[in-house]
């Protein structure tokens, strides 16, 4: 088979057309093979359980024709306009403006987040969605410490989320401790589990590390599922106490916040309160992470991601450095878990499946590993965007998948693909993602 390169641009127009047509025919043939079963034949379970099917050849023909036409269009554009690069799609002036505005994006997002409960006070759905997005922002920032900074691929992050949630649920229901007492304890327990996971995986790298962390996440879930006497097994734990405002419950009782303030009770009060609690927790995560990056431990994490052998040659204890990364990330996961338990009022192992780990990891990778702002934007897009496409019904997974593929083509290192230095003499210049290593375990 002959390979056809883009050097053919200067060839004669007839050979150009022949090439375009040939490519379009190949694409259409592939589409025909692929979609003949996926679209051409539709199967369904009949009323008595037997398989019934019918053909949709008109849909199939339309799709194949669309691929044929699209292939000609794309190839023709590529001939006349030249190869499409992400840079050439957007004019330089617009790119400059975007770069300028991105400096104000983080404060703008923060101010917007602060005012969400005010703007959308009467829209319970938006408030709930906001809480969900912020929970994932916090989880993303927590995992970012492990994956983004230390470069340790962790596929079992949901384990720490589960440990935090169950710690709070069990402490609160068994010992009647308040949310604000349990929160640090939940973080502490999760951090301990982080260290326990860290020890056996210290020697592992890359794929092996990912598999062991994945297994760890499943182990925690299966233990919770089967330890009936403690965790209630698949029935979960219900009637978990709601958080209080320093001891003042947000209920309709006489000693509730509404009664004390002398205002009319509304269930939205609690939602707004929860919103600010998770916003506060997320901002705490962000603040601590930003602080840690500028401390020797944070620099050691990043150095570990860049080159572990060089770290050891400089006298850095890579064991404790890795363990602190795991523990710090796990602690934030535990905080988020405790919040999740108090918000839901009910938890069960079903909430802590691998899907959650994958979603949080996707947020970190999409956001740009190590970038705090990128993770926040990615969480907003992934969780908020997923809700946004709800109207598209069964196509929303398709749209989301397409969006991710396009993003990975144009911005392979995530939305914010550069690294900001932690210390500088004259001017902090962003470091191109091409130089920054992803880490290898």
């Amino acid at each position, binding site marked *: 088979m002959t390979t056809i390169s883009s050097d053919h641009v200067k060839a004669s127009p007839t050979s150009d057309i022949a090439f375009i047509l040939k490519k379009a025919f190949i694409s259409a043939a592939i589409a025909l093979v692929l979609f003949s079963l996926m679209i051409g034949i539709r199967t369904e379970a009949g009323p008595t359980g037997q398989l019934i099917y019918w053909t949709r050849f008109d849909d199939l023909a339309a799709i194949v024709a669309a691929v044929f036409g699209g292939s000609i269009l794309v190839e023709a554009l590529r001939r006349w306009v030249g190869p499409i690069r992400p840079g050439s799609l957007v004019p330089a002036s617009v790119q400059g403006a975007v770069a300028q505005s991105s400096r104000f994006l983080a404060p703008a997002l923060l101010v917007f987040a602060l005012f969400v409960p005010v703007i959308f006070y009467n829209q319970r759905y938006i408030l709930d969605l906001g809480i969900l997005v912020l929970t994932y922002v916090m989880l993303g920032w927590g995992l970012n410490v492990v994956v983004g900074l230390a470069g340790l691929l962790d596929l079992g992050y949901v384990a720490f989320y589960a440990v935090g949630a169950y710690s709070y649920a069990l402490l609160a229901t068994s010992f009647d401790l308040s949310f604000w007492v349990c929160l640090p304890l939940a973080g502490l327990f999760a951090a301990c589990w982080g260290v326990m996971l860290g020890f056996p995986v210290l020697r592992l790298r890359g794929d092996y590390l990912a598999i062991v962390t994945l297994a760890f996440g499943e182990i925690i879930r299966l233990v919770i599922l089967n330890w009936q006497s403690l965790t209630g097994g698949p029935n979960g734990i219900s009637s978990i106490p709601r958080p209080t405002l320093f001891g003042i419950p947000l209920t309709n009782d006489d000693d509730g916040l509404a009664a004390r303030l002398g205002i009319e009770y509304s269930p939205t009060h609690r939602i707004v309160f929860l919103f600010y609690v998770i916003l506060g927790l997320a901002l705490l995560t962000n603040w*601590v992470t930003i*602080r*840690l990056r500028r*401390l*020797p*431990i944070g*620099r*050691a994490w*990043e*150095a570990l*991601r*860049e*080159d572990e*052998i*060089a*770290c*050891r*040659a*400089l*006298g*850095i*204890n*890579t064991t404790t450095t890795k363990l*602190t990364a795991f523990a710090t990330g796990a602690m934030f996961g535990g905080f988020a878990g405790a919040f999740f338990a108090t918000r839901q009022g009910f938890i069960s192992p079903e909430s802590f499946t691998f899907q959650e780990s994958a979603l949080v990891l996707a947020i970190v990778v999409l956001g740009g590993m190590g970038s705090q702002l990128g993770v926040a934007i990615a969480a907003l897009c992934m969780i908020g965007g997923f809700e946004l496409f709800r109207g598209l019904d069964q196509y929303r997974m398709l749209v989301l998948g397409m969006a991710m593929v396009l993003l990975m083509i144009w911005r392979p290192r995530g939305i914010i693909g550069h*690294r900001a*230095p*932690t*210390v*500088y*003499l*004259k*001017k*902090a*210049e962003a*470091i*191109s993602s091409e*130089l*920054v*290593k992803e880490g290898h375990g």
Partner: protein
Amino acid sequence: MSDPLILSVDHLMMRFGGIVAVNDLTFAAARGQITALIGPNGAGKTTVFNCITGFYKPTGGVIRLKQTDRADIALEQLNDFRIAKLAKVARTFQNIRLFPGMTVLENLMVAQHNALMRASGLTFLGLIGAPSWRAAEKRAIDLAVFWLKRVSLFDRADDAAGNLAYGDQRRLEIARAMCTEPALLCLDEPAAGLNSRESAALSELLLSIRADQGTSILLIEHDMSVVMEISDHVVVMDYGVKIAEGSPQQVRDDPKVIAAYLGADEKEAISVMESGE
């Protein structure tokens, strides 16, 4: 009374399966001097380095780091990072190992990790921004700036290390090693890939480190002009054993050394030399 030696290697043995990379090697490095370890490719020089800096655990033998005020440290019993941390042995690598995605300044800050870790109260003092931590960080930056000026990279301080030219990366790696304030600096082919002007600048830098900081230097080098110019003592290895030792002049005239480098057997090499003179 300070010990005239900084490092003594006795009967060092390193086997990889059936292959003997280093066989009964004994040599010493004098305090405050530059000792060069030379030999043809595959002679086992880097293996010796990896044993000294703890990246390999020697199969046999004793490596002692002598300290003036304290007991000797048995390097063969320490783990890699402890050798750098406790024994103050810093090293560079044959294939440069910088942190390419971090700035030049950050590279030098990472090198001061252990000192900064103590100053930041194991992170907790640093997290609350204690004044003692701020002062320590400022001192660390000052030390980094001092070394940046010494290796003439001050103007590149805020650039990514991966963006530096090859020669600059070599010098940065030496500066990074020096930021750990080592007693013994081990350089694995620091002049590899440098042009003659850069090699000369490197020689000057190493001589000034020896003179100003009093750091003892152990170096592996192929560039004979550098070795002959700056070394106080040269150890020559071939096939894992020491074949000669002495001043640069002595070593240069040693028939065994010439034989090893020319790849001929001893008698032949001597005859080649005699006929040449």
